[in-house]
């Protein structure tokens, strides 16, 4: 069972306690943006076979949204962090780079 630590309440929560919310750090393109940007924002996803930054909600706990860095090919969790950020914390990125030399993901690589 997937276990993630909620960065707000510090609880190690089973996935039954959490609700998945899809890819994190999407840049929002709203009204006035170009069709391609709006399309990518709405539909296109990285869907990597590797490290994935994603949103979760501690639905049956504190109810807050947070982010997780997790590998989709091994289910290894590199860390969780609060959602009020536009990019992953340095220590999480360092952990990922140490585990996976040459790793890249959008602009965070």
């Amino acid at each position, binding site marked *: *069972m*997937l276990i993630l630590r909620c960065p707000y309440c510090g609880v190690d929560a089973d*996935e*039954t306690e959490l*609700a*998945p919310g*899809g*890819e994190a750090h999407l840049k929002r393109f709203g009204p006035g943006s170009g*069709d*391609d940007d709006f*399309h*990518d924002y*709405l*539909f*296109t*996803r*990285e*869907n*990597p*076979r590797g490290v*994935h930054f*994603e949103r979760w909600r501690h639905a049956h706990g504190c109810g807050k949204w947070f982010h997780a860095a*997790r590998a*989709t*090919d*091994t*289910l290894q969790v590199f860390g969780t962090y609060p959602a009020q950020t536009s990019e992953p914390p340095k220590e999480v990125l360092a952990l990922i780079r140490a585990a996976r030399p040459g790793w890249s993901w959008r602009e965070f690589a």
Partner: protein
Amino acid sequence: MKRYSAFAVAREALRYHTGWGRAWAAPTPNRRYDVVIVGAGGHGLATAYYLGKNFGITNVAILEKGWLGGGNTGRNTTIIRSNYLQDPSAAIYEKARALYENMSQDLNYNVMFSPRGVIMLAQTEHEVRGYRRTAHANALQGVATEFISPERVKEIVPIISIDGPRYPVLGGLWQARGGTARHDAVAWGYARACSDMGMHVIQQCEVTGVRSEGGKVTGVDTSKGPIDCDKLGVVVAGHSGVLAEMAGFRLPIESVALQALVSEPIKPCMDVVVMANTVHGYMSQSDKGEMVIGGGADGYNNYTQRGSFHHIEETVRALVETFPMISRLKMLRQWGGIVDMTGDRSPILSKTPLEGCFINCGWGTGGFKAIPGSGWGMAELMAKGHSPLTEAFSLDRFKEGRFIDESVAAGVAH
């Protein structure tokens, strides 16, 4: 290729079965093919087969990373139905269902198609309205379905409990010519027929890169060396995003795990397929007597072919309530596959931004039933550049807002 027949069985019985040849060849790849298909699952093999059969294109290689039919083709719950709401879906799924009817004769390979009937249970008022609507839509599309009463459901499925406390059965959408087929045999039958036409089915050959020149595909790099081609078909289900990245474009797809399980074999007790979409569970009985059970997909991205246990629990809990007699059954095996989900729960059969590269993906949780129709349409698309079957399923439908919304019509389970 030696034809399989009752006579052949008798002949071989008289000579200790020494005369059976390989069902398909194991060739070393050529340096160049007209068409390369990536992925020797049902959809990839069917695409190759109809390229040869309908369009005479036989200089084809089908490359498979693992073994033939070892992905979702061998992991699904083998349900075949075509009771979809939207016209483009009904067209392609009904084409597939119709092709399943004669597939054994067409391929000279017994795929054990069993049109035993499929019931989708309506267990809420909302579902009753939804399935009535689907039945009307199906009548207009020429797909034979009907909405039946709870009593009729009980008559068709005696082991069901129609007056459960949480989710009583309020009716059902019944497709009498839906059913099941032997999933491995579908892959094997197509592979044998492709091999017989001179195509190369190459297993354990992983594609590691896509080559292009001036925006046009020229070939692929593989673990068995580079292979050139004029046209490339990417038919790799859960790994579509990985291949798309090699080809330089992105997809509106997320890969998640979907699980299934089978029970110990028991005597025949249910001769139809029952799907209960409100409670996330579907069940049929295999020819060996195992109850074949499927449920809902996980909610998070996953490539491990391993799902979450709590989904199994939810599925089994719901089915035990609907079929009280299975409560003491032991479960024998459980497994997962990686399904490629699109936002509107409809597939993508399309040209791509890379000229000469075509993609067939996004079948999500319900690809098996569509294999022949998907292959038929994909072959036409690759040979002629357009196909009436696949037109609506193009990659640009998301940008243009032409969704084929089956997420409500099909329920959650396929």
